[in-house]
């Protein structure tokens, strides 16, 4: 499939994109996260698309997924309104505060902290300690 973006044309292998997207969608909707961190490498590495094309479009793709999985979770009665109302404003507020902090911290440090934090969390979930 050919895609045109800001004056440049890209050849996209939709078979790889769709299969990858499908698998990521299953996993991310099952575990209740967005899936962006998996989607971006898929599109940049496997589909060889440039970053500036990927940032917006991957967001749109996972938005499709999250919408449907929200509906499905709601249908299965997994959604708790009060719990949601407790977290939702905080998430909004966080999204507002974060960009102001972002200017002051190095993304490299954040990623290294995240790396350690995620490994610790993973160890906890796997029952290592």
């Amino acid at each position: 499939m050919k895609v045109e973006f800001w004056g440049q044309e890209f050849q996209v292998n939709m078979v790889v994109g769709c299969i990858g997207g499908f698998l990521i969608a299953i996993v991310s909707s099952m575990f209740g996260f967005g899936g962006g961190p998996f989607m971006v490498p898929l599109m940049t590495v496997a589909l060889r698309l440039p970053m500036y094309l990927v940032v917006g479009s991957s967001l749109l793709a996972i938005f499709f997924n999250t919408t449907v999985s929200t509906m499905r979770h709601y249908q299965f009665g997994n959604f708790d309104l009060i719990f949601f109302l407790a977290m939702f404003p905080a998430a909004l507020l966080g999204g507002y505060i974060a960009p102001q902090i972002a200017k002051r911290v190095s993304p490299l440090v954040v990623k290294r902290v995240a790396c350690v934090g995620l490994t610790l969390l993973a160890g906890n979930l796997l029952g290592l300690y």
Partner: protein
Amino acid sequence: MKRRLRILPWLGLAMAMFLGGQWVQAAETGDATAAPTAQVDTATPGSAAPTIQIDTTTLNNGGSLKVTGKAPAGKPVYIEVWADGHDVRSSRFDSDVDKETKKRPYIFYLTAEMPAYYKILVPKDLQSKLDEAKKEGSKWSYSALLKDLGADIAYSVPAGIAIERYQSGLMASVVGSRGKLLPAMDEKESKKRSMQLVKARFRSIGRVIGASVEVQPDGSYAATLKIAKGSAPGQYKVVAVVDKKVKSEPAVFENKISFPTVYMDNAGTSMNLIYPFILSLCVAIFGVLMGAGGGFIMNPLLLTLFPVLPHTVVAGTVTPTVLFSQGSGIYNYSKIKFINWKLGAGIGCAMLLGGFIGPKLTEMVTLEQYKFAFGWILIVLAGLMFWQTTPGYLEKNKKEQAILKEFKKRAEEAAKGK
């Protein structure tokens, strides 16, 4: 403390003799007509129903209360406690190999009537058996344990819940349906399955069975009932059981909670709303900084910090939270025309299908499986993050980011120019 414990049942007994059924009546304001029958029963010992009193009728977000009473002498006394007003959902996907047919049944059991709180108190001398069962870890069997403790006679409330069962299969999983609804089960089968659902819901032994009933040789008993913080509010009923049909009238108490502690209907627990708010705030900030949605950190953190929350509710509630941050992101990008709709929607369609199936799978896996898989996902993610901090990637990323910034600037200017 120990002396007080010994005196209390006697005191209670003396009071009970004096006041007869009045105690019972006082304890169960909602069910006054039942009191006389309890009184009549105590008059004929042997096959008589036990009496029951509780020392308080209201609790504030959990606490402990004393249950005392008199049962026929020489019999162990079991106490069944359940939340009367609030039910929760519980489900279990049966994919264990059947011992007789050697086939995997793939049947999905679901109920919406599981009491939000359910516990059986057993005599104190069974503590050693309970400890032994706890050593087995997550593999314990509720029905076997009940039988072992002799507590199966007390198991009555969840036995009567309505359970739906669905025959699932590969096809049903692919289209994301629960499968074919099977005919209702008979009473015995339903009871057996309900025990599995109790385990699926409450998971740990400590939450469904406690050994705290002290029985005196003359049959009077005393027990401390602890209602954990975060339990469902509303009416609780307490029943003393000595045999299958021989049980006391229910004593009723109320668990009260007040704002900001709020009961969450689907999660079946009450929680101080401030905790998830603060947690969510921190996670959202960090999520934006590291360039991943908050869901990755939020879900495992919630599961770790609040083990009472079922994983289905955690996943189902975090998802819409993520949805809105994505929506606002899309809005911002679309304002400057920085989204390729064709590409996004194309891959999005494939993701629609995946999103349809995923939530179904959440229901089907147990918490252990969920945690295990999530653990590995996090390791992969940590690997990705690590890769993004390697020099090779940084070099490449620098160029990419520069181009990204350049294009974004152009896009912004174009949007402004209009």
